[in-house]
């Protein structure tokens, strides 16, 4: 080619200056691309895509207390949001109750505290949970989901009908530096228990959303992201296959995914297209599952918070819009546009409104939804999709060779990948190999934008602690002890723990108490972070 300078995509794929029919001459349309809604689903999981149904617009949110989060959800519902995505706060993710003395300063940060059934009920008070679908970024063992299910039953809603998603994903769980967690093998066990239970009792609930968002946001590239995502999914299926408690086609039918959408526009689109084809191959070819519904890579995408800068925060509006567009052109089923103030604080009301409007403008004004997979057939995009697939398979293989994703985590290998990626990113920022406008390029001496800042309420923890103390006092202590004892016994014996988690919740056990049973059985695992 005429251009002598080497150009690479964000994940290191060499990019030519021009693509021609020569670059896609080995593609067989029916075998490799096909129509939307037909194997191998490269162009989309549904035959009508956005002409049939627009992507779901929803944002992950939650803050301060259940009562204040509830107010926010009512507002989101009125704005036309069609589902809720619940972010639990730091203490909840750590499996600690609000009254745990170790966490006083951390309640209500980065999400809503949900220590008890009462907290979940307060979060969803007055909201029509039978009409919307809810996503719970739940901690290990789907304990908040158990609370959500018990709440639904108390409202007279049949769990056979309830719709939503539990994160339940080992990969996303593995990335943040969390205290008070069991080892990966334990996470895997609880996750698969929950999926098996849902296959029978909550068949419309998505019992897992394999989630590479956190992994991507810690600096991994799109190839690593896709590789770890699919390797994790494969390990869950392997675990269920070896157990043999639930037929595999039922186990995998409601699997869904969650990825980031990052800056490299076409690579992100290629990633989503490659992911659909790869998932089809895993389900159809590797596991021989014939039901095509099982082979659908249904995906929620979120704009990558790590690309959003603290400096000149309004620039993030543009980054988010491009990322939303990449998600739409990539055929996502659901999109979360971050607040432009992501690098500064939880989104203010203005930022939240703007992110919903960004999606609505992309969906309803730009006409990009008029036809399915508009980039299908592009020499470049098809070639990049092939490259992405080829490289991601190699990465999946590498992880499988070391014994699967749980081993890759417990051995520390994945953590080395995470921190290497972060350190490399900083190096590239320093040298200018990676450009971040307004940060390492065209940086201004002084910040020009004044943006409103969302301030967390320092009184919120006290309200939460008081409420929980009262809740704990009014319980039937002997019923509670019985339920927790049973849960502990089943945890040790190796049966499915989830129905016993539900029973413990009915007896008003708290998140911290249930989490302590997990830690007692498996021990606490310290994540191998370091330099």
């Amino acid at each position: 080619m005429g251009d002598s300078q080497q150009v690479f995509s964000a994940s290191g794929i060499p990019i030519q200056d021009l693509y021609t029919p020569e670059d896609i001459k080995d593609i067989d349309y029916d075998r490799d691309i096909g129509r939307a809604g037909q194997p191998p689903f490269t162009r989309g999981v549904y035959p009508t895509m956005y002409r049939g149904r627009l992507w779901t617009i929803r944002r992950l949110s939650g803050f301060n207390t259940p009562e204040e989060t509830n107010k926010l959800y009512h507002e989101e519902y009125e704005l036309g949001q069609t589902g809720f995505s619940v972010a639990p706060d730091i203490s909840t993710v750590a499996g600690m109750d609000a009254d745990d003395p170790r966490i006083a300063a951390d309640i209500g940060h980065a999400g809503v505290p949900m220590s008890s059934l009462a907290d979940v009920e307060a979060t969803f008070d007055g909201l029509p949970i039978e009409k919307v679908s809810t996503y719970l970024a739940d901690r290990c063992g789907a304990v908040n989901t158990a609370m959500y299910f018990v709440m639904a039953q108390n409202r007279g809603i049949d769990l056979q009908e309830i719709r939503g998603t539990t994160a339940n994903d080992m990969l996303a769980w593995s990335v943040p530096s969390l205290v008070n967690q069991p080892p990966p093998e334990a996470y895997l066990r609880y996750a698969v228990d929950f999926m098996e239970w849902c296959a029978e009792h909550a068949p419309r609930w998505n019992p897992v959303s394999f989630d590479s968002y956190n992994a991507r946001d810690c600096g991994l590239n799109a190839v690593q992201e896709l590789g770890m995502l699919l390797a994790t999914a494969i390990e869950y299926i392997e675990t269920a296959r070896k157990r043999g408690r639930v037929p595999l086609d039922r186990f995998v039918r409601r699997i869904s995914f969650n990825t980031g959408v990052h800056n490299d526009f076409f690579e992100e689109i290629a990633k989503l297209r490659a992911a659909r084809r790869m998932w089809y191959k895993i389900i159809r070819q590797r596991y021989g599952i014939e039901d095509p519904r099982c082979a659908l890579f249904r995906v929620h995408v979120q704009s990558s918070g790590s690309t959003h800068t603290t400096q000149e925060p309004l620039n993030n509006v543009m980054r988010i819009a491009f990322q939303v567009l990449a998600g739409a052109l990539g055929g996502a089923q659901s999109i979360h546009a971050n607040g432009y103030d992501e690098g500064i604080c939880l989104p203010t009301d203005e930022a939240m409104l703007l992110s919903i409007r960004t999606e609505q403008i992309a969906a309803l004004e730009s006409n990009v939804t008029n036809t399915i997979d508009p980039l299908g057939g592009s020499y470049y995009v098809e070639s990049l999709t092939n490259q992405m697939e080829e490289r991601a398979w190699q990465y999946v293989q590498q992880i499988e060779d070391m014994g699967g994703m749980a081993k890759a985590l417990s051995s520390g290998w994945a953590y080395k990948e995470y921190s290497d990626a972060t350190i490399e990113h900083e190096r590239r920022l320093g040298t200018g190999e990676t450009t971040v406008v307004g940060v390492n390029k065209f940086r201004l001496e002084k910040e020009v934008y004044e943006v409103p800042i969302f301030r967390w309420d320092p009184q919120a923890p006290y309200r939460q602690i008081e409420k929980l103390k009262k809740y704990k006092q009014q319980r039937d202590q002997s019923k509670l002890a019985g339920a927790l004892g049973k849960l502990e016994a089943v945890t040790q014996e190796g049966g499915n723990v989830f129905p016993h988690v539900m029973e413990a919740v009915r007896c008003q056990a708290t998140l911290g108490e249930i989490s302590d049973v997990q830690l007692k059985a498996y021990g606490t695992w310290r994540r191998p972070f370091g330099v």
Partner: protein
Amino acid sequence: MDEKKIKILMAKPGLEGHWRGIIAVSAAFRDAGFEVVYGGHMRPPEIGATASQEDVDIVGLSILSSNYTRLVSETIKELKDRGKGDVMVLLGGIIYEEDFPALKDMGVAGVFVTGTPMEDIVEFVRKATS
């Protein structure tokens, strides 16, 4: 301090899970020739005890949730209680400018918000310890 390596304890006093900043800064300190004790998540009393036991010159705190004022003040109190009030305390993360004066009053020597170039942080430590 020209003969002795500068020794820095890097820790997160809160439960919040963002680690990119602390890892990146720890690596930059290590590459600059400082001795880094990577503590990761440590509650304030643990930070005080480790700073004392390891006899560090500097404690670097990383906080990306908005409860930093409380966490920093608890940590500094722990350091003072253990006779380590002379340790230099640095803070990195999402920190609002309007809180800088209060943090300085508390005894924080340097505040580095997200997006600060690594070399600026290293340079600050070099100058402050020379």
